[in-house]
């Protein structure tokens, strides 16, 4: 069950569609390089929607790492917090594209939404079929990892480099 300061670092995206998987890849890179205290969970959320409700509900703070579309050029990085995280459902016709916004809306209805939500995002370049990311996107993964570390620090958690 949730501890007072439980934090979830959640990598989101589809690793089969090149840069779409940048969130998962950044989360994996963070997990490989940094260790965190027990009350921080680092999870590969992949492409799943509803399956993540329980996971998110059982944490106080959410740091989602994901591909985002902000209008900025590819490989641009961004941090969205609070109201900047769009909380609306998109497209009633695409019910199976439950994204983060939709999950958070469902959780709010149940009074189980996290106290704070941060999105560490990267604008993708290529979304073709493939397990590899574009080199330009690959290049910004270390910066995304740093952003995750900084975000944890903001929440009072010190990540320790793995030797």
């Amino acid at each position, binding site marked *: 069950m949730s501890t007072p300061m439980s934090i979830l670092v959640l990598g989101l995206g589809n690793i*089969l569609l090149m840069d779409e998987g940048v969130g998962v890849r950044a989360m994996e890179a963070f997990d490989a390089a940094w260790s965190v205290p027990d009350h921080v969970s680092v999870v590969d959320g992949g492409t*799943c929607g509803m*399956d993540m409700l329980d996971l998110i509900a059982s944490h106080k703070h959410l740091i989602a790492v994901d591909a985002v579309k902000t209008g900025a050029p590819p490989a641009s990085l961004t941090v969205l917090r609070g109201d900047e995280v769009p909380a609306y459902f998109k497209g009633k*016709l695409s019910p*199976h*594209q439950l994204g983060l916004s939709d999950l958070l809306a469902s959780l709010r209805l149940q009074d189980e939404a996290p106290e704070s939500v941060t999105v560490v995002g990267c604008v993708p370049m290529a979304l073709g079929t493939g397990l590899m990311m574009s080199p330009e996107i690959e290049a910004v993964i270390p910066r995304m990892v740093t952003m995750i570390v900084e975000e944890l620090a903001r929440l009072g958690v010190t990540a320790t480099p793995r030797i």
Partner: protein
Amino acid sequence: MAQRVVVDPVTRIEGHLRVDCEVDGGKVTNAWASGQMWRGIELILQGKDPRDAWVFAQRICGVCTTVHAITSVRAVENALKLEVPLNAQYIRNMIQGAHNVHDHIVHFYHLSALDFVDIVSALKADPAATAKLAQSISGWPKNSTQEFTTAQKKLQAFINSGQLGIFGSGYWGHPAMKLTPEANLMAASHYLQALDYQRRMNKVVAILGSKTPHIQNMAVGGVTNPINMDSQSTLTLEKLMYIKQLIDEVGDFITQVYIPDVAAIGAFYADWTQYGRGVVNYLSIPDMPLDTKGTTFALPAGYIDGGDLAKFTPIKDFHDPYFEKGVKESVKHSWYQGGKGPLHPYDGETIPNFTDWQDDGKYSWIKSPTFYDKRAQVGPLANVLGMYASGHQRTQFWVNAVLDAVSGHLGSKVGVDALHSTIGRHAARAVRCVVLHEELQNQWKLLMENIAKGDTKTFNKPVFPKGEIRGFGFHEAPRGMLSHWVVIENGKIKNYQAVVPTTWNAGPRDEDGNISAYEAALIDNPVAVADQPLEIIRTLHSFDPCLACAVHLTDTETKSHYQVKVV
């Protein structure tokens, strides 16, 4: 003068399901379903180790991950003629049962109920009158005035916050909305409760699969769950008892809330038994194997020709050539290079050839599968009718129970024929949900009994021969019959095709110009307001459309949901 109505969702990347309808005199007269189903799995898997295919396959989709994992290992096992230990079959059966039950609850309440339920109208309901209505159809303890008052306040607060979220794109006040404010509040309140119950079901998947999202316990040859009643890191008695508790809790919700709600909404919208019939050749396959070879099944099924339950051919087992030889895919109207006629999945090709949209030519990324050269409908309705025709008693019991409840509301007899419709698909999904839930309880018992006998085996090691082998795996997934086809050469994947349920239902016209289940079901649908085609969406949602669900981005640029163009 016919109008053309184009419903094109703008998803996070680009359109994925676009439907064009010609509307004349308030009715759909012609339809084209176009999808952008992601067909790249074969490219990713070529040259990979067949034992790893399921890991990638379960990332095709954002909703039905477990189903691709299970189907993928079955395809490789089929090619190897590899038996699967009983415990592994039971554990897989429980994962799929729990996943399907979860999926059906989510589909009805969270993905399609708002096509029939007006949330804004629910705010005007009298909670006491709502309780009276709800208690008249079910003994569910949460059908109380207090519960409905709380739900109404919650909805009001949510709507007042201006963050409509999940309710943002509803057609509130549309002339096709027919429920009373009380019926709307009842359904909306159950919508909130369903959020909680579907999660309990998902916990079962998480415990058995070691993780969700994306289960970790699949393996070619079985599952990786060690069974050891004394070790905390394995499937212990404590975990199995917790799973049992979760399964039981959800059962009451299905029988006392979901089933009565479907029957009530079905009766209110009885005219929707007249729409959405479409293709009535139904294809479904047996599932929940009860032996190591996959020759006997808890849930039988097969093919029904022309909607006639007497014209039923069973599909017997995991190796049945009747199924294996019957499937072909045409690309005549899809954006792929063709010219070879319909191809069997073992010989399938996926070479993109994009043209613009051509009504009489190519207009979709989806291929058109056929079964012995006929279009077929797959999904819960096909599966329920298949089980019904097979003489599966619990299916017959629940079909009759739901139809009797609807007949009671209407005061006139409603028969099995009503199921061939938009609202019938919802009823069939509810029936399938309860039948699967009962079987889930049964599979739990079988697993416990087998472990009690001292059998703890969960894995048979695969050995890959030199040369070429091929195999297919199928699974009755929430949206219908799913099959994976694999060709393996010297232990590496040479060709891989996933023929997914929505491909069967949402494909374009086939080699002979015959229309698909989606397209056919839309013909004659009423359309009251051309730029608010709620009725078109109702019929599409009854199939539980699932396309390109693998792509998702957080979009800060646009807040559009989908576009409706009337041209």
